[in-house]
């Protein structure tokens, strides 16, 4: 039996809870998109086109997936801001703050990788910006300052699976977006909630 103070739900409308909610919506709609989407550079764009125009309810499901993701990327930083403003990172909740920042990073990565999957101009060139930044990282990128790694071993190569955006890039972004990152997110979220419980509940009204 777990008791929580009355009036916990207030005007910051439980942003953490909403993040979970939007995540679940994405998890529910994602697999349906997966049924019609093949991560093949020759097909991906046409598949998304089909989802939008041919598949029954396809556009609706894709839209829900997209807009829920957008709301999630609004909610998670807002939740972090709430946590900071209520000093909920102070003892005994430091660990949960660290878990939270990791969740924040994973959420952004989720969006970055998902944005790429339709393989349209916007996705391609958007991802190119990200790839350029990776390529220019100090030490780790082949073109950055103090680069030590050759272009076929640097972080840019690892990210793209090659030196340019192509099939290997799409394959690994697909894997990251549909398996690796959501898995990590779900696991860490569980740990996040366990930590709230362990800290003796919430620090104050939301």
């Amino acid at each position, binding site marked *: 039996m777990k008791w929580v103070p009355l009036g916990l739900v207030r005007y910051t409308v439980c942003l953490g809870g909403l993040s979970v909610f939007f995540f679940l919506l994405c998890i529910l709609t994602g697999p349906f998109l997966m049924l019609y989407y093949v991560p093949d550079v020759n097909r991906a764009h046409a598949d998304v086109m089909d989802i939008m125009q041919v598949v029954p309810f396809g556009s609706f499901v894709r839209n829900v997936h997209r807009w829920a993701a957008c709301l999630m990327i609004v909610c998670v930083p807002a939740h972090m801001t709430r946590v900071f403003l209520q000093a909920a990172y102070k003892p005994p909740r430091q660990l949960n703050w660290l878990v939270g920042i990791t969740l924040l990073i994973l959420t952004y990565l989720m969006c970055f990788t998902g944005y790429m999957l339709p*393989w349209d101009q916007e996705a391609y060139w958007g991802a190119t910006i990200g790839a350029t*930044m990776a390529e220019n990282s100090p030490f780790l990128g082949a073109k950055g300052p103090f680069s030590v790694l050759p272009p076929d071993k640097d972080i840019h190569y690892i990210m793209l699976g090659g030196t340019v955006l192509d099939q290997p890039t799409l394959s690994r972004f697909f894997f990251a977006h549909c398996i690796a990152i959501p898995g990590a997110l779900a696991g860490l979220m569980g740990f996040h909630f366990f930590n709230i419980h362990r800290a003796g509940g919430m620090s104050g009204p939301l």
Partner: protein
Amino acid sequence: MTEKIVEEGPVTTGDKEKLRLLTVVRGETLRNRDIYERPPGYELFFPNFVMKELCVGLAFLIIIFVWAYFKDSPLYELSNPAETPSHIKAAWYFVGLQELLAYFDPYLAGAIIPSMILAGLYLIPFIDPDPVKGIGRFAFKERKFAIGCFLGGVAMWYGLLLVGWFFRGPYWSFYWPWEDQSVVKATEVALWSFPLSAGIAFLVCYGTLVLILPAVIFQNFFFRLGLIRYLITFNLFAVMCFVPIKIFLRSAFSVKYILVTPWFNI
């Protein structure tokens, strides 16, 4: 459990009604009765609290459904590596970083600055010297510096995002809202960089100012933080404040780099 069974004999209510009162139970009605002892001012996490959150979720579900019904998520033409569009914009949540690219080299905008942001976020619980102040409430007055820095950073992130999203047109040129973004601007502003000595002098002065001045002026604060935490805090602070400074120098005085070296430029 508060109810008590009152032991009284069976009561008949007359011959016509075939009812017999067996016992009288004194206590609250079922509706008001808690099966478990309830601490005053508390409610059950499940189902009471979870239901409230679900109601908020439901409201958003309706919003999302309406939104998804009326507004299609965009899908542009098939990617074409051979044709760089004039108007590349990252997804809106990354446009802040992309906007930084207009002022900083990619290694700064894409690697160093984001890493510093994340490192700073991770370090927050360890560089805040006060373990108790303001937990669970909005204590703006008592945590001026902490909250000021945090909200300053958040404001900068979203400020850059808004500028990048609304004020940048083709080739990332700056457009006022009343300017037509379909007209490509030929704005190759001549940029200049500080000479090496001036650059070093500028950065040394800046570093000294940000790293030493607070320790001198706010001595209590310095001693409460301790040297290591102080240095970490104000290095992060220096980086954060450097961003708007560079943006200002670039926009107002067309400064390309403050420091030019053979290895990297700042």
